[in-house]
């Protein structure tokens, strides 16, 4: 279910590019995470100066990486599915398969819209209460940037599922390529 390939010809090119940009950030973040973990191990063992807060930052990084890549992941067909039955259906009844795929995309859209809706008040609260991670005085990571990524990521996922629908409908009904 990848629409990234022919996106330039459609009206959602800007959205795909933005999702790619976020994913690139998430990609870069993985490399930073590796560097920090190595620096912490090296610092602790060779220079007797461990980096404080790497463990906490690593945990938060996972959430950040997920939310940054979510939109591009959905657009790029990274969502796992059991393709066995639906491929069979697609060969016999391509229209039924199309209908199912559209319904699935709608459900995905709704559930991520709910996630976005639930993430927003948490961001507001984090901002208003100056939420932070870590130990006051030693090291402090503000909470709001991570909460913001959660809102953006969930919203991108919602839109990604929404934009899958026209892409599905434009596709030839006879096209039975594997979706995953």
């Amino acid at each position: 279910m990848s629409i990234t390939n022919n996106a330039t010809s459609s009206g959602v090119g800007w959205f795909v590019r933005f999702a790619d940009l976020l994913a690139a950030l998430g990609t870069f973040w993985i490399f930073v995470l590796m560097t920090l973990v190595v620096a912490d191990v090296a610092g602790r063992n060779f220079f007797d100066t461990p980096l404080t807060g790497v463990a906490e930052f690593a945990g938060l990084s996972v959430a950040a990486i997920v939310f940054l890549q979510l939109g591009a992941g959905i657009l790029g067909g990274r969502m796992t599915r059991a393709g066995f039955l639906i491929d069979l259906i697609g060969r016999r009844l391509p229209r039924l398969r199309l209908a199912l795929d559209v319904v699935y995309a709608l459900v995905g859209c709704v559930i991520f819209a709910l996630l976005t809706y639930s993430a927003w008040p948490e961001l507001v609260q984090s901002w208003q209460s100056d939420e932070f991670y870590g130990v006051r005085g030693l090291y402090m990571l503000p909470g709001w940037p991570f909460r913001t990524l959660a809102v953006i990521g969930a919203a991108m996922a919602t839109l990604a599922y929404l934009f899958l629908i026209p892409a599905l409908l434009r596709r030839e009904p006879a096209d039975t390529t594997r979706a995953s």
Partner: protein
Amino acid sequence: MSDLGFTALVIGTLVLLVLMGMHIAVALLTVAFVGMWVIRGNFDLALQMMYMSAYGGISSYIFATIPLFVLMGLLVSISNIGKDTFDVAETLLRRVAGGLGVATVAANAVFAAVTGVSIASAAVFTKVAVPEMANHGYRKAFAAGTVAGSSVLGMLVPPSLLLIVYGVLAEESIGKLFIAGLIPGVILAVGFVAMIVLLAIFAPRFVFDFDRLKELGEARRIQPVLTGKQLAGKSLPIVALVLLVLGGLYAGFFTPTEAGGMGAFGAFVIALMRRSLTPQRMWQVLRETGGVSISILILLIAALFYSRMLAMAGVPMAISDLVLDAGLGPYGFLALYVLIVLLMGMILDSTSILLVMIPIAAPIATDFGFDLIHFGIITVIAVEIGLLTPPFGISIFTVKSTLNDESVSVESIFGGVLPYVAVMLFVLALIAAFPALTLALV
């Protein structure tokens, strides 16, 4: 509604949606959301719980292992370490019956210690081992089956993504699971080797293509043999990497997350030293790492939410009572469980099976007195068998598509892999019967 009725409805809906091809993460999230809303009659609570799983649940130090080990595996895959390992094994084992098959298993076992994904091993060794085996008169289907069969070692020998996922779901120590996977991994590899040697001696028609052997004639015996210096050069990087990751974990020097970070960094340095890393390639590797990680992590988020909903609804308790009342006994339960996992393996990928099964099965296994680490290794072997059985044997498809050879059909690869499945079933029974095989080192 009674607990059992609700349980049947929740699990039935999920299985139906997943079977019908809905994205598994979406199916898990939706069923969990609606389920929680119904149980508590509180829409806002369901919203809050979903956010907690998606944000707080995933922000965990231990989850950072996933992108790090994926990065390490991909870096190792592009820097020709797989081919070198195979070359070394080929030279060392050239006098053994079925030596190239044994070499493939041995190289896979070592390679498994630096990668956490079976599919990665399958792709690397299809390119390296299958052509070499075919050149030496092995049947291509047997060669492909050997690669697919031995690739499952990637998930059992630590570091293993499946063991990480299991550890998260069962709330068990991932470091301990990694160590527990070592002995079963070795037993499985030894079992594969024994089976290849026996087949080569007693059923050579299954292993070799005799027409091709005749064609090759004497040419086959003249093999390029590596010098001692070449051997050392080719084995040094992988040995260093295995020592760094496994040694660090086993000595308690690294946490699993640190082992992942150090392993990825080690693989990065090796790839740089071999000049197999241009900036563009590094970027491709990182993008792929992101893609693979997100597909696992989003499933984990969804599964965390789903398992919270199940716990809130008392589903594990209800099923546990049912199983206890049925008078199955611990091994009856285990047999039933393995059977269900094997059946699911025919249609689902490994991670998804764990996500659906473990939240329900782990509490029951505890009730029956199983050690969850022992139970985890059993689960992973059972799930891995699913990678090799039709109709959805993902390892088989990987080998087939990487091989891209018209003369080798999917069916013939399934045939070639059958002996490996038999060995796995045997090892599974062995490990189920003797928990010490997993727990001795822990």
